[in-house]
């Protein structure tokens, strides 16, 4: 087995390259923070494994996910290192390359996004770079699949002959002397190769936290004893400066002016508008409004209605007839038709909306807008003690809160990380879409997109207000600075959009067969049976008993329907189950019939209050568990459950009672 480790700065197209090389697909986005943990793939029909590591600016880890990359070098074996560098940001990218080259393993530098560089009218002489860095340099454009096959062939053909790199930078004499001394001590007493000893020494002098911990753990005395001297002499500054000077000199030498120096800087022109201090936020909201318009008014809902007509009509009737003909007992017939087809089928009819929304999100990601969205939000976020970086986990949370919370690992400050984790569940995840869709169709047919947008915005507002409160309580200082690379805008590629949409949406289909299925059967059983056995009237069932007992509690927020209350309880399993439960409990044959039933049980104000409650109340099991895993304590998970319940109740109460006072109904 040959292991290839993919290193690189964030947003250099590393994940795209990984997918090209492995012929597989891993989630990719045109913004920082997508690769949170390392991914492993194989090059087809070979024994070459490729490890895609989180993007890092240097081997000195600032965040949890950056530590994954450094620890991979320290503790795991790798035969070849591929360093993916953004060709148009070489000065910064090569700083990491030098650290990797010093490690001494066979290394290939892939200058990715080479087309963007050429569009800027610049190119670099490959041979000059290869000589300067003593390694193979390849030009690639992973998005356009250019140069990737050559890179693959290079990796496959050269192994195991790809030579180890002998790159060695000449540091100032005091540093050189100290390295020499440390290497001597390490090789003599600790059985390490001189190359590895040299790399360890340089990283240690450079105050790399992961390496310092490693050195302490292994009690490498030649380094530990000299640590105060290294610090006093500011070796880290000297090392950084030497590397930077070397890169600048090399790039100057390698740079060639391309044939087209007069490129139109479209990216800059678009950015002047979309990141404008005043226009940025309205444009961001406008884009989301358009997304919901497409999802609910123009494309998703009409398709969904067609699907619903099929599921509730021909499918349901045919299966029922078939079951009667086959001699199925009423219990089994009801379980399949009233339970599974109504519940699971009732949720599956929302596939067009879910996929439309995911396609829009994939399109935004691939175009490069998401990084701008984070930049626009930075100003707003800084007012509550967070910064634009915290917006990335939040926006991932719009898809699903679980990966959103996991993405909070990219935030350096522990308190900021905790705050982001705690406010993430208030982001309206896609699992809430089916229930929104049902209710907006029933009560707000003319303003569907606007009502859904208002819920998303409310989620963000509640999250920001809470962040401000947490900032005061936890005394979190906004020390970290938000830096995000703004990638050039790309014309979105259909294959990437399709794959991104499918990757995000297939989880929904999968859930229909697992958790939604389970929730539906559970609620059907609870509604088929009651304390006295099989019930003919659902009002005597267990579900009704549970729901009824809570009606007085929810009356102040406008909820008088025991069915809705029971549905919220199953929603803790997974939010999609709320819709399935309502279908089963109202015994309706489909979405259209349910919409008609709901209109008798809710006023528009009560319906909105219900949606707000669904938006803010207890997150699903998986989210609670991931909060526990990320904060390392059940205390925070429990806190999330209680606080979200209280906040949901308070906000719904204010909306419902406030609305009544204003004369709404």
């Amino acid at each position, binding site marked *: 087995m040959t292991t290839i480790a993919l290193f690189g700065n964030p947003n250099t197209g590393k994940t795209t390259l990984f997918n090209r090389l492995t012929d597989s697909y891993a989630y990719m986005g045109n913004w920082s923070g997508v690769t949170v943990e390392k991914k492993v793939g194989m090059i087809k029909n070979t024994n070459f494994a490729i490890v895609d590591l989180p993007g890092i600016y240097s081997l000195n880890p600032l965040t949890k996910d950056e530590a994954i990359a450094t620890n991979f070098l320290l503790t795991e074996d790798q035969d070849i290192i591929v360093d993916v560098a953004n060709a148009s940001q070489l000065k910064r990218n090569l700083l990491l390359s030098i650290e990797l080259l010093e490690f001494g393993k066979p290394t290939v530098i892939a200058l990715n996004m080479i087309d963007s560089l050429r569009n800027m009218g610049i190119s670099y002489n490959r041979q000059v770079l290869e000589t300067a860095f003593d390694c193979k340099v390849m030009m690639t454009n992973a998005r356009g699949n250019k140069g990737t096959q050559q890179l693959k062939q290079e990796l496959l053909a050269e192994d195991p002959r790809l030579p180890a790199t002998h790159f060695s930078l000449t540091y100032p004499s005091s540093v050189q002397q100290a390295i020499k001394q440390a290497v001597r001590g390490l090789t003599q007493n600790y059985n390490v190769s001189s190359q590895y000893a040299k790399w360890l020494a340089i990283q240690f002098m450079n105050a790399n936290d992961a390496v310092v911990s490693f050195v302490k753990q292994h009690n490498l005395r030649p380094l530990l004893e000299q640590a105060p001297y290294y610090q006093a002499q500011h070796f880290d500054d000297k090392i950084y400066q030497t590397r930077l000077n070397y890169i600048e000199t090399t790039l100057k030498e390698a740079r060639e002016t391309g044939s087209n120096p007069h490129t139109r800087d479209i990216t800059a022109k678009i950015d002047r508008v979309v990141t404008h201090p005043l226009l940025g936020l309205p444009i961001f909201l406008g884009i989301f409004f358009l997304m919901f318009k497409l999802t609910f008014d123009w494309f998703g809902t009409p398709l969904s209605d067609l699907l619903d007509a099929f599921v509730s009509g021909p499918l349901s009737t045919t299966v029922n007839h078939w079951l009667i003909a086959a001699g199925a007992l009423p219990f089994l017939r009801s379980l399949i038709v009233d339970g*599974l087809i109504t519940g699971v089928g009732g949720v599956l009819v929302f596939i067009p909306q879910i996929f439309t929304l995911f396609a829009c999100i994939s399109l935004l990601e691939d175009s490069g807008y998401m990084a701008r969205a984070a930049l626009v939000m930075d100003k707003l976020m800084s007012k509550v003690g967070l910064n634009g970086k915290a917006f990335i986990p939040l926006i991932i949370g719009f898809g699903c809160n679980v990966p959103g919370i996991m993405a909070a690992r990219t935030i350096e400050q522990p308190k900021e990380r905790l705050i982001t984790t705690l406010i993430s569940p208030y982001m309206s995840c896609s699992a809430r879409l089916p229930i929104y869709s049902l209710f907006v169709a029933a009560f707000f047919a003319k303003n569907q997109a606007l009502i859904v947008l208002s819920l998303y915005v409310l989620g963000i507002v509640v999250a920001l207000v809470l962040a401000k409160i947490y900032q005061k309580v936890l005394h979190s200082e906004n020390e970290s600075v938000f830096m995000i690379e703004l990638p050039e805008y790309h014309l979105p590629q259909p294959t990437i959009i399709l794959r991104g949409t499918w990757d995000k949406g297939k989880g929904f289909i999968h859930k229909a067969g697992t958790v939604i299925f389970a929730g539906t059967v*559970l609620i059907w*059983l609870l509604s088929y049976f009651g304390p006295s056995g099989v019930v003919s009237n659902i009002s005597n069932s267990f579900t009704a008993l549970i729901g009824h007992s809570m009606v007085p509690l929810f009356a102040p927020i406008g909820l008088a329907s025991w069915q809705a209350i029971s549905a919220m309880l199953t929603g803790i399993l997974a939010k999609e189950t709320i819709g399935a439960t309502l279908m089963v409990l109202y015994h309706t044959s489909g979405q259209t019939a349910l919409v008609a039933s709901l209109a008798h049980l809710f006023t528009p104000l009560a319906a909105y209050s219900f949606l707000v409650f669904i938006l803010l109340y207890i997150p699903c099991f998986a989210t609670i*568990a991931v909060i526990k895993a990320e904060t390392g304590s059940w205390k925070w998970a429990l806190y999330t459950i209680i606080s979200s319940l209280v906040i949901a109740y308070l906000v719904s109460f204010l909306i419902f009672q406030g609305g009544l006072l204003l004369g709404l109904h």
Partner: protein
Amino acid sequence: MSFIVNFLISAVIIGWAVWQLVKVIQKSKKGKCAACDYKCEAKKLAVEAKKKAL
């Protein structure tokens, strides 16, 4: 359809649901999303790579 067949089909449906419920709860405890269970190509390869390495 005999009573036994009716019973068996019902038992399979309910049994599957209960099993899924248990799985969801167990997985949630590990901090995994119910949506992340699908065996994507990369995950399968990772498992194979791990086995081969052992």
